[in-house]
């Protein structure tokens, strides 16, 4: 076979320049006052991914999520009617954390301190010797948090009355997320990492391919080729505040013999499950502010970078699976796919931390993004717009 392979054409420098060309200030990648403003301007006002609906499939199921960026512990339930609900995981008596287990199934939640008991709708149902209080029980329901899902991905908004619904917030991405394998997932593999690095610096690593050939010389072999040595994407898409890239893959990848066995099994099951051939299978979604989703049929994953402080973050990566392991070959293919994805992800952590150590001194006043790092620039633009608007809002408020 000598069929002609399509020639790779990168996004041009001119096209990328519409997102900007100026150097980006380095301070927002390590300064704590900027981080504090981000917490308010971005993380308390955006829909944030905190999990997947398959974690609470039945009425009475619940999960608890710690969200350090807001100093919040969240309790997310599926109530008796099957609806998702979310609350601050804090008893409305004196603030005691209500639930300590990360997940489970129950209809009521009793505070260990004085046995105030709430149902899965957050209503205070019982409080011992309540006549001694000076308040109505109806005022003491758990403090609500907005919650919704799209394509299986579970989102919360710390504003109980968000400015936009989740679907409006996601815009054109919402319909696409519904078509991805993660929308049908019933279970997942998960690996996590803690990193001494700013959340944007961490996130940026995973939205530019410039580094691939240097940091992933072995595992990244399938993502580069003769006419695309850096493995740059085919296209970038901007759907403010979100962005996408269409991944290019080598039409003649070098696949090792044992890898072929695992990939063959994985492809067989992906086809059997109807996950192959989707238009979105090569789309890599960067959902503002801190979530990635990839629709690949064999390794569909999400990657959420949770900020902890200006220079510390946590990454949670999940590979989504449709149906339980039903036979040895499926289990084997999944183990291999997860292991390979984790090998690639784990190679980035050290160099991101090295980047943070270099920035922390303030020696660099600016960062220079090239055309193929345009998604990093776009993230900064989206964050900075919100931070500057928040600061202006504070100034105006302070002057009144």
């Amino acid at each position, binding site marked *: 076979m000598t069929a002609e392979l399509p020639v790779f054409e990168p996004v041009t420098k001119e096209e990328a320049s519409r997102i900007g060309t100026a150097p980006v200030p380095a301070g927002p990648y390590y300064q704590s006052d900027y981080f504090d403003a981000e917490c308010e301007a971005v993380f308390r006002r955006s829909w944030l991914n905190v999990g997947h609906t398959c974690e609470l499939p039945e009425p009475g199921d619940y999960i608890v999520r710690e969200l350090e960026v807001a100093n919040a512990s969240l309790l997310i339930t599926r109530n008796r009617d099957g609806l998702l609900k979310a609350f601050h995981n804090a008893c409305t008596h004196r603030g005691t954390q209500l639930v300590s287990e990360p997940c489970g199934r129950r209809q009521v939640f009793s505070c260990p301190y004085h046995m105030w008991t709430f149902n899965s709708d957050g209503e205070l149902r019982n409080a011992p010797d309540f006549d001694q209080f000076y308040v109505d029980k109806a005022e003491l329901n758990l403090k609500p948090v907005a919650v919704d899902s799209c394509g299986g991905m579970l989102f919360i908004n710390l504003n109980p009355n968000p400015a936009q619904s989740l679907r409006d917030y996601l815009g054109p991405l919402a319909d696409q997320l519904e078509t991805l394998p993660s929308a049908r997932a019933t279970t997942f593999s998960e*690996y996590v990492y803690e990193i001494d690095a700013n959340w944007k610096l961490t996130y940026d690593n995973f939205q530019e391919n410039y580094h691939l050939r240097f940091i992933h010389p072995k595992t990244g072999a399938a993502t580069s080729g003769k006419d695309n040595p850096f493995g740059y994407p085919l296209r970038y898409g901007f759907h403010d505040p979100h962005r996408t890239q269409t991944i290019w893959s080598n039409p003649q990848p070098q696949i090792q013999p044992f890898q072929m066995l695992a990939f063959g099994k994985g492809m067989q099951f992906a086809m059997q499950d109807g996950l192959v051939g989707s238009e979105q299978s090569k789309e890599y979604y960067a959902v503002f502010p801190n979530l990635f989703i990839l629709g690949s049929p064999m390794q569909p994953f999400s990657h959420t970078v949770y900020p902890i402080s200006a220079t510390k973050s946590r990454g949670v990566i999940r590979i989504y699976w449709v149906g339980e392991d039903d036979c040895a070959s499926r289990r084997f293919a999944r183990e291999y796919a997860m292991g390979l994805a984790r090998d690639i992800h784990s190679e980035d952590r050290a160099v991101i931390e090295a980047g943070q150590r270099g920035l922390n001194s303030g020696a660099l006043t600016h960062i220079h993004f090239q055309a193929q790092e345009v998604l990093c620039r776009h993230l900064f633009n989206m964050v900075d717009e919100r931070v500057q608007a928040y600061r202006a809002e504070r100034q105006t408020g302070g002057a009144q």
Partner: protein
Amino acid sequence: MNAANRLPAAFAELEPFVDQWCLATSNERTTARRNSTPEEREAFFNAGKVIAADALQLLDQKPLDQLDDKEQCLMSLLLSLAHVSLAVEIQGGDEARHALASQHMPITRSPSNPR
């Protein structure tokens, strides 16, 4: 325990690898990969790669929850082989450097972990 009787008879040549590689969880498997020597990984990979397809074919004949102890041990070896193959076949000489990075990324959930 009889060290020569823990796998289905057709796969007895993998018995020497059971102690090191028959492990319950994905995180234990990747930890074993990281803590092993290059010689141990190569020996296991070379022995396992030639029987992997046949072993999967055998195990695929039953639902996973009906595998007997010997078949479960073989399944577990195949799952470890997936991790070890990444070290030998993909990373090669870079595995030592790679292991330093991978220790910071524990596997916290896997469908192959016991319920």
